[in-house]
């Protein structure tokens, strides 16, 4: 292929078109409201990757990716898990409780709360499985309904039994040092959460494509009757997938809590909206699991960069939301146009 042809390919390729389209519209919005794009864009990039901000972007990437797996894994089995917030909070508060209440030797002091958090998240999620397979209540409804009480419960626990005395907000006391996630390098915010979630993502991708369980999960998601007919125990597989998703959410909660500022602060897990960012990322990846980390990275980049844009270029936070909203819509549209083209 000649060089111009290659260039043409690249320019016409979907991601480039998506980004270009999103940039164009965003620039238009900026111009309309009187923000100088020449200041805003560099600030966006700086806010996300330069000046030491990459640390935060990566730090935010970790729970978002965790939550993306929490949604993506059950989705492979055909179950919509929209209850990420509840699973996240349950995982976080459980991890905090274990770290605070159980005296543990170093090492176990980190590992056990993480496991406990994952288990708690899994338990919250798995409730939806029998409701779906036995009672026909779709997981998309039940997970959403279970989420709110789970968040309330976590909030109650940190407000009363686990609360730090004499402080203004509902939060647990700081967790013992032994329970702090080991930091990566000299960073204050990068912890072993990153390699852990990266490894788990790789594991999931591997399991999804190349293991018996992954195959059975996908078969269940593609055609439940087919899987049942084939001898797959679909009720169990669906429950497993939901539990696995919940465990990812719970683990994300635990990772947040065991990372700086090393405590459960009421509302801090749900306020950033990881759950729906993750849902959007997974849906953007449109059923191709390998793409999920990339779409998560894109949305995290936008969110963290947006804060930088706000700080440095004086772009108000509201505008940041507008821009993000537009970009998500545009990317969604371009994703379908791309999917349609080969036809």
């Amino acid at each position, binding site marked *: 292929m000649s060089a111009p042809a290659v260039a043409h390919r690249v320019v016409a390729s979907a991601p480039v078109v998506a980004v270009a389209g999103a940039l164009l519209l965003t620039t238009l919005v900026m111009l309309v409201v009187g923000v100088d794009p020449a200041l805003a864009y560099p600030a966006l990039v700086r806010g996300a990757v330069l000046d030491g901000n990459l640390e935060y972007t990566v730090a935010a990437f970790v729970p978002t990716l965790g939550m993306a797996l929490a949604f993506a894994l059950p989705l492979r089995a055909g179950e919509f898990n929209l209850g990420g917030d509840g699973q996240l909070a349950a995982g976080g508060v459980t991890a905090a409780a274990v770290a605070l209440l159980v005296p543990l030797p170093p090492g176990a002091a980190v590992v056990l709360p993480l496991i406990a958090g994952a288990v708690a998240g899994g338990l919250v999620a798995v409730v939806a499985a029998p409701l779906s397979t036995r009672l026909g209540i779709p997981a998309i409804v039940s997970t959403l309904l279970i989420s709110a009480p789970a968040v309330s419960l976590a909030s109650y626990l940190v407000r009363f039994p686990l609360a730090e005395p004499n402080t203004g907000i509902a939060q647990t006391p700081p967790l013992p040092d032994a329970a702090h996630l080991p930091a990566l390098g000299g960073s204050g915010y990068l912890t072993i959460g990153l390699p852990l979630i990266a490894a788990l993502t790789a594991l999931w991708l591997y399991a999804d494509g*190349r293991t*018996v369980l992954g195959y*059975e999960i*996908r078969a269940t998601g593609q*055609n439940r*009757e087919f899987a049942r007919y084939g001898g797959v125990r679909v009720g169990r597989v669906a429950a497993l997938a939901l539990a696995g998703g919940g465990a990812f959410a719970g683990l994300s909660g635990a990772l947040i809590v065991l990372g700086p500022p090393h405590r459960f602060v009421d509302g801090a897990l749900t306020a950033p909206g990881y759950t729906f960012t993750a849902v959007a990322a997974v849906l953007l990846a449109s059923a191709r699991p390998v793409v999920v980390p990339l779409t998560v990275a894109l949305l995290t980049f936008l969110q963290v960069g947006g804060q930088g844009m706000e700080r440095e270029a004086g772009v108000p936070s509201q505008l940041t939301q507008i821009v993000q909203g537009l970009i998500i819509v545009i990317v969604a549209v371009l994703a379908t146009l791309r999917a349609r083209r080969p036809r």
Partner: protein
Amino acid sequence: MYAAELVGVTKRFGPVLANDGIDLAVARGEVHAVVGENGAGKSTLMSILYGLHRPDAGEVRRDGHRVVLRSPTDAIRHGLGMVHQRFRLFPGLTVAENIVIGAEPVRKGRLDRAAANEAVAALSERYGLRADPSALVGGLPVGVRQRVEILRALYRHAEVLILDEPTAVLTPGETERLFEVLRTVAATGVSILLVTHKLSEVLAVGDRVTVLRQGRVTGRFTTSETDADELVNAMIGRSLTPPVRRRAHAPAGDPLLEVRDLTVRDADGVARLSEVSFTVRPGEIVGLAGVAGSGQRELIDSVTGLRGAVPEVLLTGTPVKAGRDPRVAYVPEDRHGRATAPAMSVAENVLMGAQRDLASRWALPRAKVRARARDLVDRFSISAASVDVPIGALSGGNAQKAVLARELTRPSTVVVAEEPTQGVDVGVRERVHDLLRAARDEGAAVLLQSSELSELRDLADRILVLYEGRVVAEFPGDATEKELGRAMTGATG
């Protein structure tokens, strides 16, 4: 002048030339059959006539005038109607609503239910297509659903009615009734295009036949002047070898499948099966006949383990295991609903059931999965672009061969086949029958459920007739269709 004509129609799907310069003309009041192998291009051609596909070349004419059909709406406006093989009905609407939709009677701005019901009642009366106008379609048997589709087309004043494999899902009785209807309808001047794989039907109801093969017309016949052999020759380029009823050895040994006094009740306590008992021995094919809904589904689900552990069902002497008993190979009737996951690849579809055997610990190497699939594709001569294409993209016959390939290569001793040749062409049908016979000859016990009596007679050593959940009769394999038909309607004696 012809009621409808396709002139020089060509249609490509990527590399596949589905239709290649096809000419087809239907006269007024004629029943015109279209036959051909799976993938010959029949559905594509009909879809073009109904505005679902645009032809790459060629044109459509109605009453001699060229028409451009951009959508079914255009086709309907030009007096075309179509009954799809996979029904296009709204399960949550009533029969009448399904029929009048798109051209509803309205009074004072409101939907005129009464008028709709009346119109539908009148129409069913006129063509002898009985259906309760106020029943919800979702709960109706397939035969009735099909009538609803036909009524819909007639209600919209279709002058050319296209039916794509209408009999594939019907019982012999229903098929007979459908043919009567088609004759009645044709007598009123409506032209009928009938896509089918069953040559007996073509000869029974068609006036003329067009044969397609690999996207081209390979024969045009007047039915009164042709016979099955000639049609088969045009379809597959050779004659069928006459069925061999010869068996390797007579059934002997302990039964591999034994059902003792099986009664199955639904949640309301109504018995769907009552005291059913039978055995199938190694090297034996037992046929299962009966009108739809006589308990076949419950029986087969019990035998395969899909209804859970049923102590009354014994496989090689021990009760069937819950879930899916690995001792049973099972070819289900519902190709897209149960037998395959249409969006998954051919390789992953033929993997089902063998995934644990192929795995080393939990790992399921893709190379192994593909290699096994390629092997099956070769051995069962399945035509697929690659083992990585979704199985839903295969033609019906090839998908069916893939299902058989998967099931018959299981290490199982009992084979349950449910409508194994539904919707497949004569060539594939022959191949499927060969495979079932081969399984029998290797000592498997085969339970064959089919609504096609000729199929049962071709294959089975014994035929059990189910009626209202009971085995009401048992015949030898060479029983006449008349005998079987009588038993199926519950006539004793």
